[in-house]
């Protein structure tokens, strides 16, 4: 059967035209007004929660669908690894779920791209239900509005190996609290173990600078400031640790997983983690589990770092009332409280931390850690600047590594990191 060139060209055009639409995303979303009947099918995406909390979320969704007949929630869960990449692919492809589990640094680029619903406008009436600091954690410098409901909070415990502390002649019941304590204990540990046991497995992050008391950004949110004298002082002290092998030699290439493994094998004496790690220690390192110590994050400001999880509403959802209602439903006081009783997280709703569950000890380690963490949360600070992107984190990490290797001074390293971060900030 013959075919003309014109027909062939038309067929090729028909093939190419749909492709040219790829990646443009859709801007034909629904209304941004959350008032109206709560109905319709929505999608809810969580961040690595299905494996441990499947029954909780299934009950929660069933409860919502029962409360609001005519709604249907499809729950999807993404693995922890590569979550930002998954979000960016969905956002660029116009397939972002209606309700999304986010952290403040993830919500910032989505809000700037107009993909996050401004909850000050759409759900401002709920604001008083949450702790003021938690509600403010999803505000973006340079933008008006709040772009996610605050969900659960955590400070993350710091684990330490009591046996290694004891071997180094340190009091295992008195772990370091401030950076000054940490530096002196770490140097002593390295000296006593002849450089075989490091105290830390990670290079300082932006949160370390924050907890050391370094101002991270200017008030306007237009430039980073962690290259101040205080920042240089922190990096200089980390260099001393690195030279003395008090900071693991492989810290420059460490990932959270590799650092965790070092802690398991007793090569490192302290490591940050989560409540879920205790089960891992019990199973994979019983001798470590018998000697495990749990303490608060190291801080010289009196404030620990608070990690905030949020629930964002896609501004292009076709069912804004249902999406907002569901995001609020997930994060309201009743559900946050019931979630907190399943795992060691803390509610961001006003008054919840005064519940006896978070204030009364019953003599077990579990309640001791919980009560202490809830207490420290009351004046915790979210030190991670919401505008500090992954590229900025890499720039800081690389410059810090060069300083630790002695290839540049701490001052030069931080100046370079700030310049790189500022340049990325300006590029949007």
């Amino acid at each position: 059967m013959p075919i003309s060139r014109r027909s062939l060209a038309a067929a090729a055009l028909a093939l190419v035209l749909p492709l040219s639409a790829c990646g443009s995303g859709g801007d034909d979303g629904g209304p941004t007004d959350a008032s109206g009947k709560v109905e319709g099918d929505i999608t809810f995406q969580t961040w690595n929660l299905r494996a441990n909390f499947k029954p909780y979320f299934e009950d929660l969704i069933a409860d919502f669908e029962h409360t609001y007949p005519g709604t249907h929630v499809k729950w999807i869960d993404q693995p922890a690894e590569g979550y930002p990449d998954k979000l960016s692919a969905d956002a660029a492809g116009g397939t972002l779920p209606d309700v999304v589990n986010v952290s403040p640094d993830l919500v910032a680029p989505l809000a700037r791209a107009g993909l996050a619903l401004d909850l000050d406008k759409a759900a401002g009436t709920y604001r008083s239900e949450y702790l003021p600091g938690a509600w403010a954690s999803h505000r973006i410098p340079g933008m008006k509005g709040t772009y996610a409901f605050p969900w659960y909070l955590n400070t993350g415990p710091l684990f330490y190996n009591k046996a290694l502390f004891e071997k180094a002649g340190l009091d295992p019941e008195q772990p370091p609290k401030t950076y000054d304590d940490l530096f002196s204990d770490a140097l002593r540990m390295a000296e006593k173990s002849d450089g075989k046991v490091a105290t830390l497995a990670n290079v300082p992050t932006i949160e370390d600078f924050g907890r050391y008391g370094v101002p991270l950004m200017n008030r306007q949110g237009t430039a980073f400031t962690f290259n101040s004298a205080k920042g240089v002082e922190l990096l200089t002290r980390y260099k001393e640790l690195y030279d003395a092998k008090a900071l693991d030699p492989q810290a420059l290439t460490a990932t959270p997983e590799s650092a965790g493994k070092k802690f398991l094998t007793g090569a490192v004496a302290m490591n940050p983690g989560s409540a879920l790690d205790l089960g891992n220690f019990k199973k994979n390192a019983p001798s470590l589990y018998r000697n495990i110590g749990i303490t608060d994050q190291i801080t010289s400001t009196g404030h620990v770092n608070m990690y905030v999880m949020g629930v964002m509403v896609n501004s292009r959802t076709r069912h804004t009332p249902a999406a907002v209602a569901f995001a609020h439903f997930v994060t309201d006081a009743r559900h946050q409280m019931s979630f907190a009783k399943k795992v060691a997280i803390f509610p961001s709703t006003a008054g919840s931390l005064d519940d006896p569950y978070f204030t009364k000890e019953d003599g077990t380690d579990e309640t001791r850690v919980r009560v202490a963490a809830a207490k420290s949360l009351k004046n915790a600070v979210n030190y991670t600047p919401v505008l500090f992107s992954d590229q900025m984190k890499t720039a800081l990490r690389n410059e810090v590594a060069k300083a630790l290797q002695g290839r540049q001074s701490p001052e030069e390293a931080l100046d370079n990191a700030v310049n790189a971060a500022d340049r990325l900030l300006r590029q949007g």
Partner: protein
Amino acid sequence: MAAPLRIRRQLPLSPWLFAAPGLLITGAFVLYPFVSTLVNSFTDRRTLVPGRFVGLANFRELLHDDMFWTGLRNSFLYVLGVVPALVVLPLLLALLVHKNIPGITFFRSAFYTPVVASIVVVGLIWVWLLDERGLINALLEAIGIGRIGFLSDQWLLLLSAMAVTVWKGLGYYMIIYLAALANVPRELHEAAAVDGAGPVRRFLSVTVPAVRSTMVLVAALSSVAAFKVFSEVYLMAGPSGGPAGEDTTLVMLVQRTGTGLTGRVGYASALSVVVFVVTVALMLLVLRADRKEES
């Protein structure tokens, strides 16, 4: 006259129909991404922000980007380190196993096993082996050499990743050489032996010329693969690309720059265009060197 002209202007449909599935897949997954990358390289597009045309700004910027030069250096070093090993070692391995003696299939399969193993699994195994407290360092310490920071020193890390690439690729290229060796006429070896040539002389004067075109193919394939290396270095040096990012390769830089919610898609596309141009140049260089040799 009109009828024959009409026939000439017509194209038969059947061949196009047969080719359509392939064309569709190629268009969607090769041609479109390629053209899209090319177009993006002249824009300041970000993951969530449509780009504006910026001319050659991205290419000018990468000339002043230290990390670009680090990536380019490491990718070239990878080619220099890996390609000679992957041209010569699989040939020697193929010579070892191409004779049909009892039990040889076991060795052929054993040498081929790393090729079918997942690169992630292989990478993790080597990370455990080369760790400061891993098996290799324990052995080195036991024989009095002391521990070596394979994974903490910039150059040792790159060398370790190259070793893994060579180890994993040996079996694949060995199979290609086995096919080539099967076509070398036995008479040539016999004639050389009658003329008094020893094994080394026979290898250099008979085997190598006979498999020369295969060696060129292996050089071309392995140089392209080596220049585009990602997994081995990423797994062994970590997402940051080794200490201070000094082991970053160009493809790692593309991934790091262009992905995530704040990814600089325009700049990463410009980097990808450079990778493409260098890869094509490498292929042409190898083929040109071969033609010169032939003439």
